[in-house]
Every structure is written in structure tokens, then in C-alpha cells.
């Protein structure tokens, strides 16, 4: 019998069981787009604490900071797009609930992940010069070009991650994975910047199936970058997972309303949607859709 690459399929809970207090966690996607939300929800249910979170942020950041899971947040923005300001993130910042914040330029993020993925201590770039990114992060250093130009540039430090979590449209059981939407975001960089990377996906298919729906150029992740694969249908909800589904705007509105409302309103939202497991969450989302439909039909 011939041998094949190993089977890396895990459950959501098995992925979260590998995580430890205090780790640096990178979350892929972009703002309210293709976020590994099923894994984020599982972290919310866990006892994990003191996380350092690295994310081009959306509700992943909002949920984790509101739950007090985050000791240090590295971000360039946190936004839900159609709701520009993330209410949970706003509240957490304004109430001083995030002990340490590192606000970077969004391009510095890519450079920092690239440095980590290449095992370099830093990479130079212009972004940050003259701005308060350098004032509010006095530990960020500049570097002088050793060549004749002698320019002073920002030495963007490597954003080294302990664990990366990303969500893709399709993967095989070995960790090869493809995106079917318009943008790869930076999920390959997250995986390569991390000691360990876990991929959630809409569907696990045969390896041959990965190139049936999409050209080979869309195979963003190779299994050598991936430590575990978990199938989580609708697992990016309520962010986009184009073309499998778009953002659930009515749900996002309900989320933003509760997050920006009183403590009681947020507690009610948590109770309704976030107190059970992933199956319970998906059932509660369907129930909300039914309610909205019933209201429209009245």
C-alpha cells in the first residue's frame, strides 16, 4: 500500500484545545471579510486568556476584546465596513479594557508578517515616518540605509505569531486550501508567520476537487504551511465568504446594535447567540432569519 500525506482533520474544539493562555494569535481575513469566526466563537467559549491578537480587525477583534480575552491588540483598523466603527472595540478602548495596544499602518502589517514569514527580524519601509504610529509605539525603531542614499526608514519588526487561524472556501484533509472569492487577503502570510496554522473551511474536498472549481493559482495554502484543517460550514458567518455567501447584514446590524447598546442588551445577544456551541449558534442565526422573514411578510 502506498502512503499519502497525513490527514490533518480536526474538530473546532480540538483546534482550540491546542491553544494556550498568553499566546500570540494571528487571525486572517480582512475586517468583516472571510474571518475564521467559528474558531473565534470557540475561543470565546473557552477559558483562554491574556491573548496577544494580531488582526486587520473586524468582529473577531470586537468579540474577543469585549470578552476580556485580549491582553495586547495589534491592529491597523477595526471596522465592520457597513458599520464603520466596531462598537465592541470602541467600548473596550474607551473603557480601557485592552491593557496594551499597538496601532500600526495597515501596510506595516503586511511588511511585519512578511518579515516573520521570511524569518527576518525586520523589513524596511516608509510607512510610519512622521506619523503618531512611531510616537505611540516608541519601541518601533528606524534604520538607516547603508548605501549612498542614507535614507532613514522604519524597521518594521517581524510580526511573529504562535498560531494563525484562517478561513478558506475549500481545503483537502492535508491542508491544501483555496479561496474562491475576489481577494486572497493575507492568509498565506499569516500561516507562514506562525509556528502553527489552522485552517477552517466551508468544505473539505478531495485533493483533485480543489482545482475543479478554481484555477490552480487560487490554491493559496500548501499543506506544508498548515497544521490542522477543520470543516466549519457557514464558519465565517457573519463576515463574507464569497461566493459561498456574502456578509449577513441584518445579523451584523443586530450585533452592532447590541454591542453599542446597554450591558443588558449585549448580555441578551450573548445569551441568544454565543452561549452554546457552533451548532447552537448556526441554529440561532437561522431562527433570527425566520423572524426577519416573518416580519417582512406581515
Amino acid at each position: 500500500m502506498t502512503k499519502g500525506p497525513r490527514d490533518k482533520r480536526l474538530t473546532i474544539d480540538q483546534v482550540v484545545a491546542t491553544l494556550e493562555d498568553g499566546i500570540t494569535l494571528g487571525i486572517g481575513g480582512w475586517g468583516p471579510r472571510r474571518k475564521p469566526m467559528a474558531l473565534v466563537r470557540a475561543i470565546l467559549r473557552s477559558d483562554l486568556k491574556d491573548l496577544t491578537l494580531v488582526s486587520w480587525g473586524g468582529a473577531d477583534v470586537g468579540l474577543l476584546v469585549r470578552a476580556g480575552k485580549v491582553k495586547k491588540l495589534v491592529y491597523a483598523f477595526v471596522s465592520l465596513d457597513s458599520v464603520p466603527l466596531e462598537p465592541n472595540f470602541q467600548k473596550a478602548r474607551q473603557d480601557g479594557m485592552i491593557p496594551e495596544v499597538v496601532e500600526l499602518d495597515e501596510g506595516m502589517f503586511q511588511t511585519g508578517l512578511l518579515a516573520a514569514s521570511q524569518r527576518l527580524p525586520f523589513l524596511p519601509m516608509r510607512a510610519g515616518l512622521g506619523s503618531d504610529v512611531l510616537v505611540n509605539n516608541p519601541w518601533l525603531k528606524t534604520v538607516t540605509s547603508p548605501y549612498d542614499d542614507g535614507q532613514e526608514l522604519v524597521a518594521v519588526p517581524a510580526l511573529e505569531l504562535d498560531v494563525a487561524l484562517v478561513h478558506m472556501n475549500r481545503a483537502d484533509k492535508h491542508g491544501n486550501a483555496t479561496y474562491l472569492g475576489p481577494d486572497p487577503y493575507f492568509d498565506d502570510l499569516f500561516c507562514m508567520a506562525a509556528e502553527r496554522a489552522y485552517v477552517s473551511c466551508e468544505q473539505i474536498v478531495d485533493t483533485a476537487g480543489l482545482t475543479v472549481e478554481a484555477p490552480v493559482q487560487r490554491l493559496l495554502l500548501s499543506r506544508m504551511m498548515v497544521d490542522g484543517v477543520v470543516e466549519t460550514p457557514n464558519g465565517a458567518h457573519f463576515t463574507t465568504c464569497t461566493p459561498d455567501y456574502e456578509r449577513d447584514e441584518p445579523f451584523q446590524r443586530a450585533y452592532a446594535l447590541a454591542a453599542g447598546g446597554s450591558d443588558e442588551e449585549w448580555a441578551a445577544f450573548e445569551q441568544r447567540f454565543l452561549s452554546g456551541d457552533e451548532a447552537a449558534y448556526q441554529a440561532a442565526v437561522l431562527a433570527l432569519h425566520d423572524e426577519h422573514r416573518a416580519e417582512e411578510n406581515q
Partner: protein
Amino acid sequence: MSPTRADVCAAAIADAFADDGELFASPMGLLPMLGVRLCRLTQNPDLVISDGESLFLASPPPLFAKGDVVEGWIPFRRVFDVVAYGKRHVMMGATQIDRHGNQNISAIGDFARPKRQLLGSRGAPGNTVNNRTSYWVPNHSPRTFVEKVDVVSGVGPQRAKAAGRAASRYNDIHRIVTNLAVFDVRGPGDTLRLLSAHPGVTLDQVREASGCDLHVDGDGAIPQSRLPTAEELVLINEMLDPKGLRFKEVPE
């Protein structure tokens, strides 16, 4: 069709991109998107425009409609490449802008414990030291035009110069278009300079709506922002924004 204030703003934004040549025009927000598409259809047909997501569009569709012909791929990672490459002109929003053309979209109050947390600095620090940057302020007021921004996200020319040649070399704060007026940052010591006030707006009104000094060239008589042409009005009303979405941002 008599031009509305929103139409005047769209024409002023279009003018900001008129001399750019063939580069990626990157508007953030509704009026900037309208103005850039207007410019692409009239004054600068070489502009490269996107759907605001990941596609370069061969021709400008109406606001929030899909384009029918795609001419390129511009996912976020390639946006960063183009920022560093430099062939880009971005028009961003600004929650605060100061006399020296610094912009804040990060936080209001003390950064360590903000009174109001905003978006975060997004790409403003990188944009302003890499490619041409303009700002759109739909609510010109003493709260948006301030003496000193609480957090410097976008870097004005004076700070760029102070940060050295790498920062100043490509720093190019081009235009600040508001619901009242148009500015650049070529006043004395790299400060805000009033270029024109929109029809019906007086210099005193602009000054009253600003929480910082504004430089005015010459004898203090300021030009009026131009009215949109008949062609521009047709394009705005019948093609780009037939639903009048622009009036949500700049009411009639």
C-alpha cells in the same frame, strides 16, 4: 438642472484628479467615488479606477453598481504594492484635519484612553509618505478643522520634512475638499490655504466653521469654486448617481 452643493463638491473632487495622468485613483467614501468617476469620464480618461474591492474597472459604473468590463485585479496586497510604487492618488476621509494638513482617523482625545475610538490609522501613515493624498470632509466645522489633531494618522508636509528625506520625498498632500470650500497646504510654513469657497459660501463662513487659522492669498478676495459643466451635471444626474445618494452626504 441647477447644480446643487453636492454637485459642486463632486466637480471639485474631479478637478483634484484632473492632472494625475495614468494612475490608480483610490476614493474612500461616496462623494470621492462620484468625483473620481466623473473625472475619469471627462477630464482624465487615463485614470485607473476600481470597484473599491478587488477589481480594476474598464469604465465607471454608477455608484454601488457592478462594472461590466474588468481590466485588472487589485486585491489588498496589490494595493500596498501600488502605494509603495507610487502611482496612486488616494482621497481619504478625515475626522480631524489640522492647520498643517495632518489628518486623524485614529482616536479622539488621549490615544492611551480615547474619549472616542475611531477606525484606527488604516493606511494613512503609509499613503501620505508614498503617494498623492487628498481629503474629503463632508462636515466642515470647528471640530473637524482643528489647530492640532489628537492623533497624526496622515502626515502633513511639515511633519514629513521633520521626519527626513524618506518621509518628505513622496509626501504630496494635494487637495482638501469640504462641503464649504477647497484647500491645499501651500500656505506659509506648509499650512492650509483656501483656494476657493463654494457658491453661496463667504470667507467669514469658512473661517467661522474652522477651528484653526486659514491662509488666504493676496487681498483676501477668494475665488468661487467652479460650477459643474452641463456635461458633468448630465453624467452625475443620469449616469453616476441617478438615485441622488450624494445628498445623504451633502444635503441640498
